[in-house]
């Protein structure tokens, strides 16, 4: 008998809990249903992310350049930003590893956590490249916020369609050495958000 069948057979015959004794609770929305921009920003900042203000007359490109005035490498995955190269121009990981600032658009954010979502669609299949960059700038529409994890999983079809879907809540971080929180571990060192309408 194959390992698969051995395992399944053992589970079928010997398991103590049985179907009829443990009903599956129906899906339910719990918790705070506030999906305001204020809540999202507060959560994002708690996770180490920042919000970049857009002053009157500034383009999104201006905002990005103002945040990273000295950089010579801005890779863009969005039409709003020209940058120095396009994400689709990246051919090797070594090339991606040189990227300083990556600019992407997230289809939605979660107010409870300050999380933004990215999948192969927004990244044009350049999945690793977004994590190799030193800094990440995320464009997010004010209209695309959901309140919390329950509403996110119930409302957003991306969780059922994407092959790769990451919720990023601030930049990479670690507290593995003597409990000291360090923002910027192995992935992006900073995560900044720019609102769009």
């Amino acid at each position, binding site marked *: 008998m194959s390992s698969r069948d051995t*395992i399944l057979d053992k589970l079928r015959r010997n398991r103590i809990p049985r179907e009829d*004794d443990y009903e599956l*609770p129906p899906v339910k929305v*719990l918790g705070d249903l506030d999906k305001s921009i204020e809540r999202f920003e507060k959560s994002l900042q708690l996770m180490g992310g920042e919000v970049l203000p857009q002053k009157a007359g500034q383009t999104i490109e201006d905002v990005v350049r103002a945040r990273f005035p000295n950089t010579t490498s801005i890779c863009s995955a969005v039409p709003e930003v020209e940058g120095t190269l396009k994400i689709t121009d990246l051919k090797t990981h070594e090339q991606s590893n040189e990227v300083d600032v990556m600019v992407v658009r997230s289809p939605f954010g979660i107010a409870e956590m300050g999380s933004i979502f990215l999948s192969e669609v927004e990244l044009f299949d350049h999945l690793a490249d977004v994590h190799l960059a030193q800094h990440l700038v995320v464009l997010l529409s004010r209209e695309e916020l959901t309140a919390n994890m329950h509403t996110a999983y119930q409302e957003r079809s991306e969780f059922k369609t994407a092959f790769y879907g990451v*919720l990023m809540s601030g930049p*990479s971080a670690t507290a593995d050495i003597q409990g000291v929180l360090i923002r910027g571990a192995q992935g992006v060192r900073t995560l900044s958000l720019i609102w769009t309408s």
Partner: protein
Amino acid sequence: MSNKPVKHAQAAAEFLEDDPHRLFHDERLWDMRQKRDQQMHGMPEWQELRDRASRIKEHTLANLPTYLEQFEENARRNGIHVHWARDGAEHNRIVAEIMGKHGAKSLIKSKSMITDECEMREYLEPRGITVTETDLGERIQQLDHQLPSHVVVPAVQKLTGDVAKIFAKYYGTDPNITDPHKLAEAQREAARPVLLSGDTGMTGGNFIVAETGGFVVCTNEGNADLSANLPNVHIATLGIERLVPRVEDLGVFVRLLSRSALGSPITQYTTHFRGPRKGGEMHVILVDNGRSDRLAMPQFWSSLKCIRCGACMNTCPVYRRSGGQSYGSVYSGPIGAIIDPTFNAKKFSTLPFASTMNGSCSNVCPVEINIHEQIYDWRRVLAEKHDIPFVKREIMKMAGRLLAQPRLYRVSIEGTEIALKTMPRFVLYNYLNPWGKHRELPHPVKETFNSWYRKNRLKTSTKKEHESA
């Protein structure tokens, strides 16, 4: 694997010898527990979440074969290669086979407890495969040839100076670094070239979703998303108990996991894998390794609800003061005490005794596992199987006889009080009394409750009864 019982108490005593390590360890874990409490107090629905999490897991375990088949079917449809492993040895063989097909020699992996459980590095390395842990804490433990000390923070028993010494040896950094930022940066710089050149990536999985054929990996450092996406081949090792039925169930568990673990609302990365990336290859290995046996144990099956948050470890006074290394196992702390004996009852027979039975572990568990009750049940099972040391067994027998006879008990309690007052220290504090090793025995009382009650209450109550009659 040696079969000799782990000398937990002895190893813990050694850990307690060094004040800086002992004090930091205790404070750090208690800080995580307090941050968890702050999160909990900000959420009125916390208990309802725990209750739902527990019920979803119980239902899934009661229907495990069906949901596993559903997951397999959906994962295959998404283009994932699904493998099944009865035990660690089979799992390791499958990994070697997949890598062999590609002529791959370098495995870059994110943290997963289950590959430690399978002793995968020990199997692959002699076969010419370099395994690199890319999580900072797990990497520190790998370089130091130690098992993880904690399920979430693997190197929590170490201080900055310890890490500086290890990195100096392997990364050539200054051994006197005192700033953790510099050490974390050294890890980033050392890991990048290995990540870029690795030919196979590996992750674990916190949750498997039957309905979508996908799985979720919750991490903070970004190393898992790099490890999984840089090489062409991604292998995910998944324990069969990690299933949930629906994608919406993730809402319940993601809200509980990092809050219970570190007291942060969510991990920095919550990554949903559902199929291979364009041009890539994805393998999932569903590992049993004792889980189907555990599901057949009436007292212990519900330990399979565990989501590996480590809250029970952070709250446990024994774990905080003995350190993860003293458990001599992949899983330490209260959860280790109840699942380790299912792997090897003799070797881990001492672990269910590393508890004060205060029940705090059960109270903080996000999936409501009755951990302290299972610790008690394990003691009974091990005593029946004679898997506990002779001295402990004999003392328990004596205590049993004493507690069964009230008169004998009272006489001996009075005797103990006199002994505490009059005996010299060397009689009270010796190897027969491990309780007195690191703490003082209680102060003797002037009078036992029983004799006070006889004098003051018994007579009055008898008198009153007479009067009312």
